[in-house]
C-alpha cells in the first residue's frame, strides 16, 4: 500500500477515536455532521413517502369532488367548521411548540425542551379529544361511510370475518340503532380512560420514588418523563372534554346565530342526557326509532329549522362517499398523530435524561419534521373537508 493511503488512514483513526467516544455516535459514520445529515435526508425521504401515501386519499377526494361537487356541498354541512378551526389552531400551536423545542435542543436548553415537548403532547391529546367528540356525534347521527348503509348484518359479518357473502344485497334494512345514551356512554368511557391514565401515573411516581431510594438516576428521570407525558395527555383530554361541554351547554343561548342550526337536535340531546334514552322523548327518535333508512333524513324530522336542511329529494346520490373519505382521511391523520405522540414521549424520556446537546439533537429535529408534516396535512384537510360550499 502506498504511504499516502496509510497517512490518510492514520488521520482517519484520529477522527474515529474522538468521534466514537461520544455517546449516540454510530460506528459507520465518520463524524456527527455526517450522521446528522444522513438522518435528516432519511427523514425528508420518509416525509416524501408520507406525502405520497396521503396523496392517494387526496386523489380520491379530488376525483369525487370534481365529479360530484353536489355531494361535497351537501354533506360537508354536517361538519362543524368551528370545531375544525379550533383543532387547526391547536395543531398550529403544537407546531410552534415543536419548532421551539427543536430550538431549545439545538441550544442545549434542557428544561425549555421538556416544557415544549410537554405542551406539544398536550395539544396532540386535545386534538384527538376533539376529534373523538366529532366522530361520536357523527356516529350517533349515523353519518357514516357508504358501506355502513348496506345490510347491517353484512357489516357485522364483515367486521367479524374477512369473508363476505356473494354479492352485496343492497336492501337497506333496519339498522340497530346505537343506544340512546351513546354520547353519555362515550363520556363515561372517556372519563374511565382518564381515570385509567390517572391511575397509571402511579407507575412513574413509583419509578421516581425507587429512583431516589436506590439513588438510580436513570430510573428517576424515566419516571419524571413518563409522569410528564401522562400529565400532558391528561391535560389535553380534559381540555377537549371541557370544550365539548362548553359548546353543548352554551349553545342554547346562541339562537338563530351561526351554525347552531344543524346541531340543534344534538344540543337538546346533550342538554337532556337523562331523558334522551326514552324513545319518543326526543323528536329525532320519535319518528325514526329503530329503522332509520337514511341517517341524514333523521334531521328532517327534528324540529331544527328546516331552511338549512336539505330535503330527501335534494340529497345527492351517493352522498355517503363524502363520509367515507372524511373518516378515512381524518382517521389516517389521527393515526399519524398517535404515532407522533409516541415519538414525542420517547423524546421526553430522552430529554429528561439529558441526552440532547448542541452537537446531538438529531432525533428532536427529525420528530419535529414528522410532526410538522402531520400539521401540514391537516392544514389541507381542514378547508377541503370543513369549508365547502357557499
Amino acid at each position, binding site marked *: 500500500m502506498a504511504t499516502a493511503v496509510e497517512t490518510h488512514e492514520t488521520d482517519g483513526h484520529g477522527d474515529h477515536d474522538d468521534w466514537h467516544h461520544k455517546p449516540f455516535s454510530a460506528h459507520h459514520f465518520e463524524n456527527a455532521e455526517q450522521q446528522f445529515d444522513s438522518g*435528516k435526508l432519511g427523514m425528508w425521504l420518509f416525509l*416524501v413517502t408520507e406525502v405520497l401515501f396521503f396523496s392517494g386519499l387526496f386523489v380520491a377526494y379530488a376525483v369525487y369532488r370534481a365529479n360530484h361537487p353536489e355531494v361535497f356541498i351537501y354533506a360537508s354541512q354536517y361538519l362543524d367548521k368551528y370545531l375544525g378551526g379550533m383543532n387547526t389552531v391547536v395543531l*398550529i400551536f403544537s407546531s410552534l411548540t415543536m419548532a*421551539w423545542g427543536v430550538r431549545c435542543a439545538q441550544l442545549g436548553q434542557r428544561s425549555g425542551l421538556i416544557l415544549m415537548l410537554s405542551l406539544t403532547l398536550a395539544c396532540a391529546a386535545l386534538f384527538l379529544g376533539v376529534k373523538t367528540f366529532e366522530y361520536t356525534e357523527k356516529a350517533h347521527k349515523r353519518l357514516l361511510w357508504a358501506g355502513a348503509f348496506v345490510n347491517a348484518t353484512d357489516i357485522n359479518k364483515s367486521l367479524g370475518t374477512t369473508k363476505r357473502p356473494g354479492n352485496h344485497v343492497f336492501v337497506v334494512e333496519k339498522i340497530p340503532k346505537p343506544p340512546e345514551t351513546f354520547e353519555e356512554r362515550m363520556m363515561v368511557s372517556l372519563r374511565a380512560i382518564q381515570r385509567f391514565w390517572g391511575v397509571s401515573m402511579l407507575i412513574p411516581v413509583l419509578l421516581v420514588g425507587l429512583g431516589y431510594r436506590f439513588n438510580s438516576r436513570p430510573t428517576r428521570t424515566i419516571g419524571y418523563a413518563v409522569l410528564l407525558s401522562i400529565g400532558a395527555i391528561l391535560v389535553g383530554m380534559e381540555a377537549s372534554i371541557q370544550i365539548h361541554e362548553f359548546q353543548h351547554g352554551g349553545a342554547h343561548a346562541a339562537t338563530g346565530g351561526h351554525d347552531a342550526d344543524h346541531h340543534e337536535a344534538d344540543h337538546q340531546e346533550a342538554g337532556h342526557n337523562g331523558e334522551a334514552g326514552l324513545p319518543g322523548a326526543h323528536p329525532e327518535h320519535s319518528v325514526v326509532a329503530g329503522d332509520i333508512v337514511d341517517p341524514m333524513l333523521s334531521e328532517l324530522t327534528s324540529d331544527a329549522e328546516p331552511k338549512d336542511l336539505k330535503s330527501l329529494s335534494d340529497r345527492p346520490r351517493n352522498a355517503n362517499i363524502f363520509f367515507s373519505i372524511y373518516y378515512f382521511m381524518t382517521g389516517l391523520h389521527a393515526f399519524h398523530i398517535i404515532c407522533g405522540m409516541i415519538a414525542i414521549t420517547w423524546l421526553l424520556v430522552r430529554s429528561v435524561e439529558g441526552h440532547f446537546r448542541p452537537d446531538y439533537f438529531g432525533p428532536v429535529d427529525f420528530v419535529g419534521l414528522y410532526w410538522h408534516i402531520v400539521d401540514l396535512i391537516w392544514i389541507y384537510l381542514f378547508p377541503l373537508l370543513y369549508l365547502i360550499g357557499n
Partner: protein
Amino acid sequence: MSDSHDHHGFAHVMSPAVLLAVFAALIVFTVITVLIAGSSLIPPGFDIYVALTIATIKAALVVLFFMHMIHDKGLNAIMFVFSLVFVALFLGAAISDTEQYQHLIKDFGQANPDSMAK
C-alpha cells in the same frame, strides 16, 4: 470536519421572533379562511381555489420556517418538492381520465336507479 465541533455548526437555529411571527401569520390565515368560507365574497365554485391558496401559503410557512427548509440543504428541499410533482401527476391523470368517462356512469345510474345504493 472542524465545523461539526462548533455549536450547532450543522444546523441553523430559528430565532423566537421568526417562530412567533410565523405562528401569528398561520393563525391569521386560519381565521381568514374560516371567515370567508361560505361568505358571498367569493364567486360560487371558486371557494376551493381560495381555500387551497390560503392552505398553500400556510403550508409554505410551515415548511420554510418551522421545518427549517429555508436554511436547509438544497437536496432535502429538492426531494420534498419532487414528491409534490409526482402527486400532481397522479392527481392530474386520475381527474382528467375520470371526468371524461363520467357520463357513462351518470347515464348508467339514471337508467338503472336500483343498481346503486342511494
